[in-house]
């Protein structure tokens, strides 16, 4: 293609984009003379170039548009919505012609006379009739905005103040040779601000002297981004930037080498200039990095126009709020998220927001809001698109799923709202009842999701019916500079992104922190918590070379543990050495290495060496923790299938006979190994001094005599200030398994037996041993107010015998009168019989009637409608909590959180008594 033509196309397209934005701005601030003249200039340039290149059709269209702009500028015509619409239409026409021009290098045949005549008609006659009616509208919009939107208010003010004198200046320019000003410019600004009606006619305006104007023009930092910035930037091809980047990297390496040489020669004449070079190179590197970064606002540039058109097309009132437009991200990523973003904003405006009437009826302001918010968080860019519309209708989604065969009714019944909402990301899904011209063109959220995932991002959604929907996009800052911790393992160095590192712990055999093992699985006690550990050496199958390969290497005496966090999962990575942190540039690994999920990239360190960057997400996933947000749905489905036998983490140990014993891990505070020589006897009980207190020791096997010396493992149970130790023979493992307890009430201290890790295991009744140490263990606080006479009655509904048997004794010793049933229907039978309870504690996932339905049924029945209900579930996500509250549960407690349950019960009953 002709160079001239291609240059023209790029330039004009850019100009059109700017015009789109500025026109929408103009509609809201019709008084803004500077904007007006900037728009006019752009329009004029387009027209002029068309004429120069011999493109008559384009020229005539552009000319007609320019005509109106000219009238606007001269004040012969006031800015109106109709006028702006016409000009936008004219721009679209230009764009269309350009597209053909680009493809064929020929101006397409066609007739624009209709558009041109309408444009001319508006330019000629419009002023008399239309502005009177149309002009006030945009103004009220503008004023409304300043009043309604507090945040915008400041900006708006600054904007107006800043532009005031400019405006006068422009008018002054229009009226060459005007008399000197009668008022100082500042007074004029105040006057303008106070006057909401547009002042279309420039004639009577006093104009300041050009010189005074210049001086009086304050810098315009906020509002005016379009034109002035454009003038201060130049276009550089990406290739040039990439080359620059490579060269700077090399320069950095050379500098580092030079500095290293310098260190060997203490007294050198080069020292000072080299230091200087050092600083300059650092700055240079930073500067070049910056050239790749662009504010996300660039990807948003088209949105105001889209929203404006949408609001006209759909007859909705939509307010687009954009926050954090200055947040920078790599330009490559920027390009890739542009389309998904546009699609999502369009979706929010079209499907999310209701019609103004419906909004008023729902008690919301007539104008709907779509809020775009971008910010940095933890090495990622978060972009949120939220609307205050009607939210997702789960029932509609369900219907749609069944219709499209995405899920069966039975499957859907077992899911919570959040799981159901995720279906909108599935291919072949569109909730809009009818396909509108705006969105719902068969390209759905699945495409959005695919596109975002392509660049390593995630998209999440949360929606409340009637309140609105929030989409959260999380994208990595690829190619950006990351601060990383450099560690060593088996003489190899690795980088761990600093953002996922919580802290560093040094362990040695003699210090406070030592690594302990449960069945060869290393763990670390860290501030009263057990921290799971992974060995980098084993994980990466590294060896020092002097040890036989394949064998599990013994841990060294001194280790460094990098405590990392992925989501809510915290774990420690054992490494040999920790160096310092270094700023690194993340480079993607070669395609042949992409399957290795433990690395997120590689980088070149200051000394020129290549190191791999460890991906904590990958490590977490590789070591068995499902912490990745994306697998959420899968986990939910698992849970659904698992039905009522949820997985429980159990600590398996041995004591007395050979049969392994198990106790829920959640009940155990710590694992200790005590020195038997330190065991004392007090009041017929074994005690040991532990953390400045006496801790009673209860042998697991009754009558078991403790040895006089040696070490013995102890399971420590804690409750507030008190602890007790259960002495066992050996700790075997931690197992997460489904719990199917077969009962046997024969043996004291056991709930029953279960198959754990394919072995028959006795499940220990922790409550029994706790009361052995302190008979009033559970009653210590809760019990005080609950004497025999007014024991609170609790109905416990749980289908799992394991939990029934775990909770029953626990609640009993806490001073409650507990009745347990295994299903909701059984509970309702009790209700029929006229039984009365103070509190109902119910499981959520149950076969037949689930907890939510049970709660609804209870609420409907007048006999029990006032009985407070507490939900009990192994999973207490915020969404569950919300659903629980909606169904009528007072509170929602995690099954394994004994303390929370007791506190909740106590509170509930206290409240009940207070009310009575």
């Amino acid at each position, binding site marked *: 293609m002709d160079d001239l033509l291609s240059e023209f196309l790029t330039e004009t397209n850019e100009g059109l984009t700017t015009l789109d934005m500025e026109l929408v701005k103009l509609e809201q601030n019709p008084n803004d003379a500077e904007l007006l003249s900037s728009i006019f200039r752009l329009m004029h340039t387009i027209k002029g170039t068309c004429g120069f290149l011999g493109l008559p059709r384009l020229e005539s269209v552009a000319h007609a548009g320019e005509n109106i702009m000219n009238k606007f500028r001269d004040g012969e015509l006031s800015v109106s919505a109709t006028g702006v619409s016409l000009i936008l239409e004219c721009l679209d026409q230009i764009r269309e012609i350009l597209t053909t021009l680009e493809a064929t290098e020929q101006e397409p045949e066609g007739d624009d006379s209709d558009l041109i005549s309408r444009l001319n008609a508006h330019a000629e006659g419009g002023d008399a009739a239309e502005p009177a009616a149309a002009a006030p509208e945009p103004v009220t919009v503008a004023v409304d905005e300043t009043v309604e939107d507090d945040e915008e208010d400041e900006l708006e003010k600054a904007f107006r103040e800043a532009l005031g004198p400019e405006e006068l200046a422009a008018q002054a320019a229009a009226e060459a040779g005007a008399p000197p000003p009668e008022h100082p410019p500042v007074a004029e600004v105040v006057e303008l601000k106070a006057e909401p009606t547009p002042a279309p006619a420039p004639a009577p305006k006093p104009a300041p002297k050009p010189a005074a104007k210049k001086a009086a023009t304050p810098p315009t930092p906020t509002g005016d981004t379009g034109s002035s910035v454009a003038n201060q930037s130049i276009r550089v091809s990406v290739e040039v930037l990439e080359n620059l980047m490579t060269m700077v990297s*090399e320069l950095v390496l050379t500098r580092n080498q030079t500095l290293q040489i310098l260190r060997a020669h203490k007294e050198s004449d080069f020292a000072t200039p080299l230091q200087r070079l050092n600083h300059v190179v650092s700055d240079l590197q930073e500067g070049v990095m910056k050239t790749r970064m662009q504010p996300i606002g660039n990807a948003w540039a088209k949105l105001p126009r889209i929203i404006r058109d949408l609001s006209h097309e759909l007859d909705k009132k939509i307010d687009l709020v954009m926050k954090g437009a200055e947040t920078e991200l790599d330009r490559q990523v920027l390009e890739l998220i542009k389309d998904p973003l546009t699609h999502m904003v369009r979706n929010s405006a079209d499907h999310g927001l209701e019609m103004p009437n419906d909004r008023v009826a729902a008690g919301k302001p007539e104008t709907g809001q779509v809020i775009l918010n971008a910010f940095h968080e933890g090495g990622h860019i978060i972009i949120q698109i939220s609307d205050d519309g009607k939210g997702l209708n789960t029932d509609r989604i369900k219907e749609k799923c069944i219709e499209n065969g995405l899920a069966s009714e039975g499957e859907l019944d077992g899911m919570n709202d959040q799981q159901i909402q995720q279906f909108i990301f599935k291919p072949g899904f569109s909730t809009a009842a009818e396909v509108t011209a705006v969105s719902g063109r068969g390209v759905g959220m699945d495409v959005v999701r695919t596109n975002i995932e392509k660049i390593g991002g995630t998209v999440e959604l949360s929606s409340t019916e009637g309140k609105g929907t929030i989409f959260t996009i999380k994208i990595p800052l690829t190619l950006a500079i990351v601060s990383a911790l450099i560690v060593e393992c088996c003489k190899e160095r690795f980088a761990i992104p600093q953002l996922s590192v919580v802290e560093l712990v040094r362990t040695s055999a003699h210090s406070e922190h030592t690594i302990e093992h449960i069945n060869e699985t290393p763990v670390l006690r860290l501030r009263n918590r057990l921290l799971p550990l992974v060995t980098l050496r084993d994980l*990466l199958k590294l060896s020092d070379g002097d040890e036989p390969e394949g064998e599990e290497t013994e841990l060294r005496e001194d280790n460094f543990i990098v405590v990392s966090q992925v989501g809510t999962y915290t774990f420690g990575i054992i490494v040999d050495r920790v160096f310092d942190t270094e700023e690194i540039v993340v*480079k993607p690994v070669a395609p042949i*290495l992409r399957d290795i999920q433990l690395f997120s990239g590689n980088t070149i360190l200051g000394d020129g060496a*290549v190191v791999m960057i460890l991906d904590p997400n990958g490590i977490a996933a590789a070591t068995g923790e499902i912490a990745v947000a994306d697998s959420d749905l899968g986990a939910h489905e698992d849970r659904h299938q698992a039905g009522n036998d949820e997985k429980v983490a159990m600590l398996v140990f041995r004591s007395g006979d050979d049969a392994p014993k198990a106790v829920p891990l959640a009940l155990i505070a710590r694992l200790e190994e005590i020195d038997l020589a330190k065991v004392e006897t007090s009041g017929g009980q074994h005690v040991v001094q532990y953390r400045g207190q006496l801790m009673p020791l209860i042998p697991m096997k009754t009558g078991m005599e403790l040895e006089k010396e040696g070490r013995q493992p102890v399971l420590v149970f804690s409750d507030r200030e008190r602890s007790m130790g259960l002495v066992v023979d050996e700790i075997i493992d931690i197992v997460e398994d489904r719990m199917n307890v077969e009962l046997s009430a024969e043996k004291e201290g056991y709930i029953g037996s279960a198959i754990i890790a394919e072995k028959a295991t006795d499940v220990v009744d922790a409550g029994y041993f706790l009361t052995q140490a302190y008979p009033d263990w559970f009653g210590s606080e809760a019990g005080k107010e609950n004497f025999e006479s007014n024991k609170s009655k609790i109905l416990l509904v749980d289908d799992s015998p394991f939990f029934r048997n775990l909770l029953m004794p626990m609640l009993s010793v806490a001073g409650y009168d507990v009745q347990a049933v295994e299903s909701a229907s059984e509970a309702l039978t009790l209700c029929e019989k006229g039984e009365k309870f103070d509190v109902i504690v119910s499981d959520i996932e149950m076969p037949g009637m689930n907890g939510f339905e049970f709660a609804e049924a209870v609420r409907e029945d007048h006999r029990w409608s006032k009985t407070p209900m507490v939900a009990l579930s192994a999973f207490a996500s915020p969404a569950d909590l919300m659903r629980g509250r909606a169904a009528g549960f007072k509170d929602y407690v995690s099954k394994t959180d004994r303390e929370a349950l007791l506190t909740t019960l106590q509170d509930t009953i206290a409240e009940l008594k207070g009310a009575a």
Partner: protein
Amino acid sequence: MSDTYLENEDFVTFYIAGQLFGVPVLSVQDIINPQRITPIPLAPPEIAGSLNLRGRIVTAIDVRKRLGLPARKEKESMSIVVENGHDLYSLMVDSVGEVLGVDESSFERNPPTLDQRFRDYSQGIYRLDGKLLVILDVNRFLDYGRNADAA
């Protein structure tokens, strides 16, 4: 595929276990001396690691291992750096020979009896005086996706 090199073309030659190989001279970015290579844990065995070539990360591939040949005795080796799909790879070879221009008429297709791996990665053979030159198909040699599918 084999018809591509019928014209006169120059090849950078190298030796692997006594056999002469060639890669088109235009696909070669660099010839480098032994370098410090960072091993990549968990990577396939023939991937020797990665190295820094003037600020770009290059993945080093041991050609012997990729061809299923026994490892070479001396640890250090010369490498030929080639670009493939915007990524640089350094092919570790026994020794690098001269650049040869070959006569199109001496081109032969791969003998069907050739070892599977050689057949996969060879574009064809040139008959030279006293020796045979195997032309390495760099694209296929580095195409791990295809290889994984086959495996």
